[in-house]
Protein backbone atom coordinates (compact mmCIF):
# COMPACT_ATOMS: atom_id res chain seq x y z
CA UNK A 1 0.00 0.00 0.00
CA UNK A 2 2.85 2.31 0.92
CA UNK A 3 4.53 1.50 -2.40
CA UNK A 4 1.37 2.24 -4.31
CA UNK A 5 1.01 5.56 -2.56
CA UNK A 6 4.61 6.49 -3.33
CA UNK A 7 4.13 5.47 -6.95
CA UNK A 8 1.02 7.61 -7.29
CA UNK A 9 2.78 10.58 -5.70
CA UNK A 10 5.71 10.16 -8.04
CA UNK A 11 3.38 9.98 -11.02
CA UNK A 12 1.64 13.21 -10.01
CA UNK A 13 4.98 14.97 -9.52
CA UNK A 14 6.16 13.74 -12.92
CA UNK A 15 3.00 14.93 -14.64
CA UNK A 16 3.23 18.36 -12.99
CA UNK A 17 6.90 18.73 -13.79
CA UNK A 18 6.51 17.67 -17.39
CA UNK A 19 3.62 20.06 -17.81
CA UNK A 20 5.58 22.99 -16.48
CA UNK A 21 8.81 22.06 -18.20
CA UNK A 22 7.62 23.17 -21.62
CA UNK A 23 7.72 26.91 -22.01
CA UNK A 24 5.86 28.71 -24.72
CA UNK A 25 8.06 29.34 -27.72
CA UNK A 26 6.81 31.52 -30.56
CA UNK A 27 8.98 32.27 -33.54
CA UNK A 28 9.09 35.70 -35.14
CA UNK A 29 10.85 36.52 -38.36
CA UNK A 30 10.64 40.29 -38.13
CA UNK A 31 10.56 43.17 -35.76
CA UNK A 32 7.26 43.42 -33.93
CA UNK A 33 5.36 45.05 -31.08
CA UNK A 34 5.76 43.56 -27.63
CA UNK A 35 2.45 42.79 -25.93
CA UNK A 36 1.62 45.16 -23.16
CA UNK A 37 1.56 42.43 -20.55
CA UNK A 38 5.13 41.58 -21.48
CA UNK A 39 6.35 45.11 -21.10
CA UNK A 40 5.04 46.73 -24.26
CA UNK A 41 7.15 48.66 -26.70
CA UNK A 42 8.82 47.21 -29.72
CA UNK A 43 11.23 44.35 -30.38
CA UNK A 44 13.84 45.40 -32.92
CA UNK A 45 15.28 41.98 -33.63
CA UNK A 46 14.94 41.53 -37.36
CA UNK A 47 16.38 38.05 -37.67
CA UNK A 48 14.44 34.90 -36.79
CA UNK A 49 14.06 34.73 -33.05
CA UNK A 50 11.78 33.33 -30.39
CA UNK A 51 9.86 34.75 -27.49
CA UNK A 52 7.83 33.18 -24.76
CA UNK A 53 4.76 35.10 -25.90
CA UNK A 54 2.58 35.18 -28.96
CA UNK A 55 1.46 38.18 -31.02
CA UNK A 56 -0.80 40.56 -29.18
CA UNK A 57 -3.00 40.94 -32.25
CA UNK A 58 -2.71 38.32 -35.00
CA UNK A 59 -4.43 40.65 -37.44
CA UNK A 60 -1.18 42.60 -37.64
CA UNK A 61 0.82 39.56 -38.66
CA UNK A 62 1.28 37.02 -41.39
CA UNK A 63 1.81 33.53 -40.08
CA UNK A 64 3.55 30.85 -42.03
CA UNK A 65 4.45 27.47 -40.54
CA UNK A 66 4.41 28.90 -37.06
CA UNK A 67 6.54 31.91 -37.92
CA UNK A 68 5.14 35.40 -37.53
CA UNK A 69 5.93 38.45 -39.63
CA UNK A 70 4.62 41.83 -38.51
CA UNK A 71 2.90 43.52 -41.45
CA UNK A 72 1.52 46.49 -39.57
CA UNK A 73 2.53 50.05 -38.94
CA UNK A 74 5.06 50.09 -36.11
CA UNK A 75 4.45 53.74 -35.22
CA UNK A 76 1.91 53.23 -32.40
CA UNK A 77 4.23 50.90 -30.51
CA UNK A 78 6.98 53.26 -29.39
CA UNK A 79 8.92 52.39 -32.50
CA UNK A 80 11.88 54.73 -32.98
CA UNK A 81 13.67 53.18 -35.93
CA UNK A 82 13.70 54.24 -39.56
CA UNK A 83 10.29 54.74 -41.09
CA UNK A 84 9.03 55.15 -44.61
CA UNK A 85 5.65 56.46 -45.57
CA UNK A 86 3.27 54.46 -47.74
CA UNK A 87 -0.20 55.11 -48.94
CA UNK A 88 -2.69 52.30 -49.33
CA UNK A 89 -2.08 48.66 -50.05
CA UNK A 90 1.10 47.29 -51.50
CA UNK A 91 3.25 44.18 -51.69
CA UNK A 92 5.62 43.50 -48.81
CA UNK A 93 8.89 42.41 -50.39
CA UNK A 94 10.53 41.63 -47.07
CA UNK A 95 7.77 39.24 -46.04
CA UNK A 96 7.90 37.62 -49.44
CA UNK A 97 11.59 36.95 -49.02
CA UNK A 98 10.96 35.43 -45.61
CA UNK A 99 8.06 33.22 -46.61
CA UNK A 100 8.81 32.52 -50.24
CA UNK A 101 5.43 33.70 -51.48
CA UNK A 102 3.90 37.13 -51.98
CA UNK A 103 2.42 38.98 -49.05
CA UNK A 104 0.48 42.22 -49.14
CA UNK A 105 -0.21 45.12 -46.86
CA UNK A 106 -3.89 46.04 -46.74
CA UNK A 107 -3.61 49.09 -44.56
CA UNK A 108 -5.68 51.91 -45.96
CA UNK A 109 -4.50 55.46 -46.12
CA UNK A 110 -1.15 56.79 -44.99
CA UNK A 111 0.97 54.59 -42.82
CA UNK A 112 4.55 53.76 -41.97
CA UNK A 113 6.78 50.76 -42.41
CA UNK A 114 10.37 50.28 -41.42
CA UNK A 115 11.42 49.25 -44.90
CA UNK A 116 11.94 51.11 -48.11
CA UNK A 117 10.61 49.60 -51.33
CA UNK A 118 13.29 47.81 -53.30
CA UNK A 119 14.34 49.70 -56.44
CA UNK A 120 12.88 47.10 -58.78
CA UNK A 121 9.45 47.18 -57.13
CA UNK A 122 6.77 49.26 -58.78
CA UNK A 123 6.40 51.98 -56.24
CA UNK A 124 6.19 55.65 -56.98
CA UNK A 125 7.26 58.26 -54.48
CA UNK A 126 4.79 61.09 -54.60
CA UNK A 127 3.37 63.51 -52.10
CA UNK A 128 5.75 62.25 -49.46
CA UNK A 129 4.67 58.62 -49.69
CA UNK A 130 5.32 55.48 -51.62
CA UNK A 131 2.37 54.37 -53.74
CA UNK A 132 2.21 50.97 -55.31
CA UNK A 133 1.44 51.40 -59.00
CA UNK A 134 1.98 47.85 -60.18
CA UNK A 135 -0.53 45.15 -60.88
CA UNK A 136 -1.95 42.89 -58.26
CA UNK A 137 -2.28 39.18 -58.82
CA UNK A 138 -5.56 37.43 -57.96
CA UNK A 139 -4.11 36.38 -54.62
CA UNK A 140 -4.20 39.97 -53.49
CA UNK A 141 -7.94 40.14 -53.98
CA UNK A 142 -8.50 36.65 -52.67
CA UNK A 143 -6.77 37.42 -49.41
CA UNK A 144 -8.17 40.90 -48.97
CA UNK A 145 -11.27 39.95 -46.99
CA UNK A 146 -9.13 38.05 -44.55
CA UNK A 147 -6.28 40.47 -44.10
CA UNK A 148 -8.04 43.82 -44.48
CA UNK A 149 -9.13 43.26 -40.89
CA UNK A 150 -5.86 44.92 -39.99
CA UNK A 151 -7.65 48.23 -40.46
CA UNK A 152 -10.04 47.28 -37.71
CA UNK A 153 -7.09 46.48 -35.51
CA UNK A 154 -5.64 49.95 -35.98
CA UNK A 155 -8.88 51.90 -35.96
CA UNK A 156 -9.06 52.41 -32.20
CA UNK A 157 -5.35 53.06 -31.73
CA UNK A 158 -4.50 56.76 -31.52
CA UNK A 159 -1.23 57.69 -33.12
CA UNK A 160 0.22 60.25 -35.49
CA UNK A 161 -0.02 59.03 -39.02
CA UNK A 162 2.18 60.41 -41.75
CA UNK A 163 1.01 63.41 -43.71
CA UNK A 164 0.57 62.70 -47.38
CA UNK A 165 -0.42 65.05 -50.12
CA UNK A 166 -2.86 62.94 -52.07
CA UNK A 167 -3.34 65.63 -54.69
CA UNK A 168 -0.32 64.20 -56.41
CA UNK A 169 -1.34 60.60 -56.14
CA UNK A 170 0.12 58.62 -59.03
CA UNK A 171 -2.24 57.81 -61.81
CA UNK A 172 -1.37 54.14 -61.59
CA UNK A 173 -2.35 53.83 -57.96
CA UNK A 174 -5.13 51.37 -57.39
CA UNK A 175 -6.75 51.78 -54.09
CA UNK A 176 -8.78 54.05 -51.95
CA UNK A 177 -7.79 57.54 -51.08
CA UNK A 178 -9.44 58.97 -48.05
CA UNK A 179 -8.82 61.06 -45.03
CA UNK A 180 -9.14 57.93 -43.00
CA UNK A 181 -6.61 55.33 -42.21
CA UNK A 182 -5.15 53.56 -39.25
CA UNK A 183 -5.95 55.36 -36.09
CA UNK A 184 -7.95 58.04 -37.75
CA UNK A 185 -10.86 57.60 -35.41
CA UNK A 186 -8.83 58.75 -32.50
CA UNK A 187 -8.51 62.14 -34.06
CA UNK A 188 -4.85 62.28 -33.14
CA UNK A 189 -3.81 62.89 -36.67
CA UNK A 190 -6.93 63.77 -38.53
CA UNK A 191 -9.17 66.43 -37.27
CA UNK A 192 -11.69 68.68 -38.87
CA UNK A 193 -14.95 67.57 -40.29
CA UNK A 194 -15.76 63.90 -40.38
CA UNK A 195 -14.70 62.07 -43.46
CA UNK A 196 -17.39 61.27 -45.94
CA UNK A 197 -18.40 57.72 -46.43
CA UNK A 198 -18.98 56.47 -49.87
CA UNK A 199 -21.86 54.22 -50.58
CA UNK A 200 -21.33 51.73 -53.35
CA UNK A 201 -22.73 52.57 -56.72
CA UNK A 202 -24.90 50.43 -58.87
CA UNK A 203 -24.64 46.68 -58.47
CA UNK A 204 -22.18 45.94 -61.16
CA UNK A 205 -18.54 45.30 -61.60
CA UNK A 206 -17.13 48.74 -61.81
CA UNK A 207 -14.78 51.26 -60.45
CA UNK A 208 -15.82 54.29 -58.52
CA UNK A 209 -13.90 57.49 -58.24
CA UNK A 210 -14.85 60.29 -55.94
CA UNK A 211 -13.06 63.48 -55.25
CA UNK A 212 -13.53 65.54 -52.16
CA UNK A 213 -11.61 68.73 -51.81
CA UNK A 214 -11.24 70.47 -48.57
CA UNK A 215 -9.25 68.19 -46.39
CA UNK A 216 -8.30 68.74 -42.83
CA UNK A 217 -5.43 69.57 -40.60
CA UNK A 218 -3.70 66.30 -41.32
CA UNK A 219 -2.60 67.59 -44.67
CA UNK A 220 -4.76 65.07 -46.45
CA UNK A 221 -6.49 67.47 -48.72
CA UNK A 222 -8.16 65.31 -51.22
CA UNK A 223 -10.21 62.26 -51.25
CA UNK A 224 -10.29 60.12 -54.27
CA UNK A 225 -11.74 56.73 -53.87
CA UNK A 226 -11.10 53.98 -56.30
CA UNK A 227 -13.00 50.93 -55.36
CA UNK A 228 -13.01 47.81 -57.36
CA UNK A 229 -16.06 45.66 -57.29
CA UNK A 230 -16.11 42.23 -58.67
CA UNK A 231 -19.49 40.91 -57.92
CA UNK A 232 -22.96 42.05 -57.25
CA UNK A 233 -23.69 41.97 -53.59
CA UNK A 234 -26.35 43.09 -51.26
CA UNK A 235 -24.87 46.55 -51.20
CA UNK A 236 -27.04 47.28 -54.21
CA UNK A 237 -29.77 47.96 -51.75
CA UNK A 238 -27.87 50.92 -50.50
CA UNK A 239 -27.90 52.44 -53.89
CA UNK A 240 -30.52 54.74 -55.22
CA UNK A 241 -31.55 55.90 -51.86
CA UNK A 242 -30.95 59.36 -52.97
CA UNK A 243 -27.72 59.81 -51.08
CA UNK A 244 -25.65 60.42 -54.14
CA UNK A 245 -27.65 63.44 -55.07
CA UNK A 246 -25.98 65.42 -52.39
CA UNK A 247 -22.63 64.44 -53.76
CA UNK A 248 -23.51 65.55 -57.25
CA UNK A 249 -24.73 68.84 -55.96
CA UNK A 250 -21.53 69.48 -54.17
CA UNK A 251 -19.88 72.28 -56.15
CA UNK A 252 -16.43 71.65 -54.73
CA UNK A 253 -16.17 68.38 -56.58
CA UNK A 254 -17.11 69.94 -59.85
CA UNK A 255 -14.44 72.53 -59.46
CA UNK A 256 -11.73 69.97 -59.02
CA UNK A 257 -9.53 69.48 -62.08
CA UNK A 258 -9.96 65.73 -61.91
CA UNK A 259 -13.69 65.85 -61.56
CA UNK A 260 -15.72 64.24 -64.23
CA UNK A 261 -19.43 63.76 -64.16
CA UNK A 262 -20.15 60.32 -62.84
CA UNK A 263 -21.21 57.69 -65.23
CA UNK A 264 -21.98 54.05 -64.77
CA UNK A 265 -20.09 51.48 -66.70
CA UNK A 266 -21.49 48.11 -65.95
CA UNK A 267 -19.76 45.13 -67.42
CA UNK A 268 -16.69 43.07 -66.80
CA UNK A 269 -14.30 44.05 -64.08
CA UNK A 270 -12.26 47.09 -64.87
CA UNK A 271 -9.17 48.20 -63.17
CA UNK A 272 -9.14 51.52 -61.52
CA UNK A 273 -8.30 54.58 -63.45
CA UNK A 274 -8.59 57.96 -61.87
CA UNK A 275 -11.21 60.09 -63.35
CA UNK A 276 -13.00 57.23 -64.90
CA UNK A 277 -15.99 55.23 -63.83
CA UNK A 278 -18.95 56.09 -61.72
CA UNK A 279 -18.57 58.36 -58.81
CA UNK A 280 -19.05 57.38 -55.26
CA UNK A 281 -21.57 59.27 -53.35
CA UNK A 282 -21.05 60.31 -49.78
CA UNK A 283 -23.52 59.43 -47.15
CA UNK A 284 -23.82 60.66 -43.65
CA UNK A 285 -21.05 59.28 -41.49
CA UNK A 286 -23.47 58.64 -38.73
CA UNK A 287 -24.98 55.86 -40.75
CA UNK A 288 -21.96 53.78 -40.00
CA UNK A 289 -21.14 55.09 -36.62
CA UNK A 290 -20.74 52.04 -34.50
CA UNK A 291 -17.87 51.17 -32.21
CA UNK A 292 -14.71 50.14 -33.91
CA UNK A 293 -15.98 50.79 -37.37
CA UNK A 294 -15.54 54.09 -39.02
CA UNK A 295 -15.94 55.23 -42.55
CA UNK A 296 -12.71 53.71 -43.69
CA UNK A 297 -13.48 50.37 -42.25
CA UNK A 298 -16.94 50.47 -43.59
CA UNK A 299 -15.60 51.31 -46.97
CA UNK A 300 -13.68 48.09 -46.83
CA UNK A 301 -16.58 46.03 -45.74
CA UNK A 302 -18.97 47.56 -48.09
CA UNK A 303 -16.78 47.27 -51.09
CA UNK A 304 -15.07 43.98 -50.45
CA UNK A 305 -16.31 41.26 -52.75
CA UNK A 306 -18.68 38.97 -50.98
CA UNK A 307 -17.64 35.85 -52.74
CA UNK A 308 -14.05 35.96 -53.77
CA UNK A 309 -13.13 32.34 -53.76
CA UNK A 310 -11.12 30.38 -51.27
CA UNK A 311 -9.00 32.00 -48.64
CA UNK A 312 -6.16 30.47 -46.76
CA UNK A 313 -7.84 29.51 -43.57
CA UNK A 314 -9.82 31.40 -41.00
CA UNK A 315 -9.35 35.07 -40.50
CA UNK A 316 -7.04 36.02 -37.68
CA UNK A 317 -8.91 36.80 -34.56
CA UNK A 318 -8.12 39.66 -32.31
CA UNK A 319 -6.43 38.73 -29.13
CA UNK A 320 -7.54 39.95 -25.76
CA UNK A 321 -4.49 42.07 -25.68
CA UNK A 322 -4.67 43.40 -29.17
CA UNK A 323 -5.00 46.95 -28.05
CA UNK A 324 -1.96 46.45 -26.02
CA UNK A 325 -0.40 49.86 -26.19
CA UNK A 326 -3.50 51.81 -26.51
CA UNK A 327 -3.30 53.27 -23.07
CA UNK A 328 0.38 53.65 -22.93
Amino acid at each position, binding site marked *: MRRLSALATGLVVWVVLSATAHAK*VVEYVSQHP*VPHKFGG*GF*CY*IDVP*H*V*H*NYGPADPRMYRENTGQYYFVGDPAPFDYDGPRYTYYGGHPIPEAESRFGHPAYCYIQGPHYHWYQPPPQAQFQLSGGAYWYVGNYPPAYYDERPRYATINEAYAPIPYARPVVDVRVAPVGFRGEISVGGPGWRAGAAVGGPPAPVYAPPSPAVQIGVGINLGGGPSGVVERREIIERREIDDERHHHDHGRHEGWRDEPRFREHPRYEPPRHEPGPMQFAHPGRGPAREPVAPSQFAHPGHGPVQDAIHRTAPQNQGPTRGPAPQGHDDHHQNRHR
Partner: protein
Amino acid sequence: MKLSCSILPTMLIAAALSACHKDKAAGEAPAAAAASHVQGTPHTDEVLNAWRSAGLAPEGFGAEQPAPYSAAYCEHGKVHGVDTLVCEYASDDALARGTQQVKDEWVRTDAHTGVIMHAKRTTMVTVDRERREPSGKTISQMAKVFGKL
Protein backbone atom coordinates in the same frame (compact mmCIF):
# COMPACT_ATOMS: atom_id res chain seq x y z
CA MET B 1 60.59 -15.29 -3.42
CA LYS B 2 59.01 -13.46 -0.59
CA LEU B 3 60.29 -10.32 -2.12
CA SER B 4 58.82 -11.16 -5.47
CA CYS B 5 55.55 -12.01 -3.79
CA SER B 6 55.44 -8.65 -2.11
CA ILE B 7 56.48 -6.80 -5.24
CA LEU B 8 53.95 -8.43 -7.50
CA PRO B 9 50.87 -6.84 -5.97
CA THR B 10 52.62 -3.53 -5.93
CA MET B 11 53.43 -3.87 -9.59
CA LEU B 12 49.88 -4.88 -10.35
CA ILE B 13 48.54 -1.86 -8.53
CA ALA B 14 51.02 0.36 -10.31
CA ALA B 15 50.06 -1.18 -13.63
CA ALA B 16 46.42 -0.71 -12.82
CA LEU B 17 46.97 2.89 -11.85
CA SER B 18 48.99 3.42 -14.97
CA ALA B 19 46.20 1.92 -17.03
CA CYS B 20 43.72 4.09 -15.24
CA HIS B 21 45.80 7.13 -15.92
CA LYS B 22 46.11 6.15 -19.57
CA ASP B 23 42.36 5.66 -19.77
CA LYS B 24 41.81 9.03 -18.22
CA ALA B 25 44.29 10.60 -20.56
CA ALA B 26 42.57 8.90 -23.47
CA GLY B 27 39.26 10.22 -22.17
CA GLU B 28 40.61 13.70 -21.94
CA ALA B 29 42.02 13.65 -25.41
CA PRO B 30 38.68 14.51 -27.12
CA ALA B 31 38.09 17.24 -24.59
CA ALA B 32 41.45 18.72 -25.38
CA ALA B 33 40.65 18.51 -29.07
CA ALA B 34 37.25 20.08 -28.47
CA ALA B 35 38.93 23.02 -26.84
CA SER B 36 40.72 23.98 -30.01
CA HIS B 37 39.34 26.26 -32.69
CA VAL B 38 37.84 24.89 -35.86
CA GLN B 39 39.40 25.83 -39.15
CA GLY B 40 37.33 27.16 -42.02
CA THR B 41 34.81 29.05 -39.93
CA PRO B 42 34.98 32.34 -38.00
CA HIS B 43 36.66 31.88 -34.64
CA THR B 44 35.08 33.08 -31.46
CA ASP B 45 37.69 35.78 -31.00
CA GLU B 46 36.85 37.15 -34.45
CA VAL B 47 33.22 37.36 -33.44
CA LEU B 48 34.03 39.11 -30.17
CA ASN B 49 36.37 41.54 -31.91
CA ALA B 50 33.73 42.35 -34.50
CA TRP B 51 31.27 43.15 -31.73
CA ARG B 52 33.83 45.30 -29.96
CA SER B 53 34.48 47.18 -33.18
CA ALA B 54 30.77 47.85 -33.47
CA GLY B 55 30.69 49.42 -30.03
CA LEU B 56 29.32 46.43 -28.21
CA ALA B 57 31.06 45.29 -25.07
CA PRO B 58 31.50 41.54 -24.69
CA GLU B 59 32.23 40.73 -21.07
CA GLY B 60 33.58 37.70 -19.28
CA PHE B 61 33.92 35.44 -22.28
CA GLY B 62 35.75 32.21 -21.63
CA ALA B 63 35.95 28.75 -23.14
CA GLU B 64 33.25 26.28 -22.13
CA GLN B 65 34.61 22.82 -21.46
CA PRO B 66 33.27 20.53 -22.56
CA ALA B 67 31.73 22.49 -25.40
CA PRO B 68 27.93 22.22 -25.23
CA TYR B 69 25.43 21.57 -28.01
CA SER B 70 27.64 19.23 -30.05
CA ALA B 71 30.07 22.06 -30.72
CA ALA B 72 33.83 21.71 -31.00
CA TYR B 73 34.64 24.95 -29.27
CA CYS B 74 32.51 27.46 -27.40
CA GLU B 75 32.94 30.65 -25.47
CA HIS B 76 30.34 31.98 -23.12
CA GLY B 77 29.87 35.48 -21.73
CA LYS B 78 27.60 38.47 -21.83
CA VAL B 79 27.05 41.39 -24.15
CA HIS B 80 25.35 44.31 -22.48
CA GLY B 81 23.98 41.87 -19.97
CA VAL B 82 22.60 39.44 -22.54
CA ASP B 83 23.71 35.86 -22.10
CA THR B 84 25.72 34.90 -25.18
CA LEU B 85 27.35 31.74 -26.42
CA VAL B 86 29.59 31.62 -29.49
CA CYS B 87 30.43 28.16 -30.80
CA GLU B 88 32.44 26.65 -33.60
CA TYR B 89 31.30 23.39 -35.15
CA ALA B 90 33.41 20.76 -36.83
CA SER B 91 30.78 19.70 -39.34
CA ASP B 92 27.44 20.68 -40.80
CA ASP B 93 25.81 17.71 -39.11
CA ALA B 94 27.09 18.83 -35.74
CA LEU B 95 25.87 22.34 -36.50
CA ALA B 96 22.37 21.10 -37.33
CA ARG B 97 22.32 18.90 -34.24
CA GLY B 98 23.56 21.69 -32.02
CA THR B 99 21.03 24.15 -33.40
CA GLN B 100 18.23 21.73 -32.65
CA GLN B 101 19.56 21.14 -29.16
CA VAL B 102 19.54 24.87 -28.48
CA LYS B 103 15.96 25.16 -29.69
CA ASP B 104 14.91 22.18 -27.64
CA GLU B 105 16.34 23.83 -24.59
CA TRP B 106 14.29 26.95 -25.25
CA VAL B 107 11.23 24.76 -25.12
CA ARG B 108 12.31 23.31 -21.81
CA THR B 109 13.29 26.59 -20.23
CA ASP B 110 11.40 29.84 -20.13
CA ALA B 111 13.58 32.10 -22.25
CA HIS B 112 11.97 35.47 -22.81
CA THR B 113 13.99 35.99 -25.96
CA GLY B 114 16.23 33.64 -27.88
CA VAL B 115 18.24 33.97 -31.05
CA ILE B 116 20.44 31.49 -32.82
CA MET B 117 22.12 32.23 -36.09
CA HIS B 118 25.19 30.97 -37.82
CA ALA B 119 27.95 32.23 -40.05
CA LYS B 120 29.48 29.25 -41.81
CA ARG B 121 29.83 26.77 -38.92
CA THR B 122 30.03 29.32 -36.14
CA THR B 123 26.91 30.05 -34.15
CA MET B 124 25.80 32.93 -32.04
CA VAL B 125 23.26 32.07 -29.37
CA THR B 126 21.76 34.82 -27.25
CA VAL B 127 19.22 34.24 -24.56
CA ASP B 128 17.54 36.92 -22.52
CA ARG B 129 15.94 35.06 -19.65
CA GLU B 130 15.61 37.97 -17.31
CA ARG B 131 14.07 40.45 -19.74
CA ARG B 132 17.10 42.64 -19.45
CA GLU B 133 16.46 44.01 -22.89
CA PRO B 134 12.87 43.58 -24.13
CA SER B 135 13.55 45.84 -27.12
CA GLY B 136 16.24 43.48 -28.37
CA LYS B 137 18.33 46.35 -29.68
CA THR B 138 21.60 44.84 -28.49
CA ILE B 139 20.72 41.46 -29.93
CA SER B 140 19.71 43.11 -33.19
CA GLN B 141 23.04 44.90 -33.39
CA MET B 142 24.92 41.72 -32.52
CA ALA B 143 23.03 39.87 -35.23
CA LYS B 144 23.80 42.51 -37.84
CA VAL B 145 27.51 42.37 -37.09
CA PHE B 146 27.55 38.60 -36.87
CA GLY B 147 25.72 38.30 -40.18
CA LYS B 148 28.54 40.13 -41.92
CA LEU B 149 31.22 37.68 -40.80
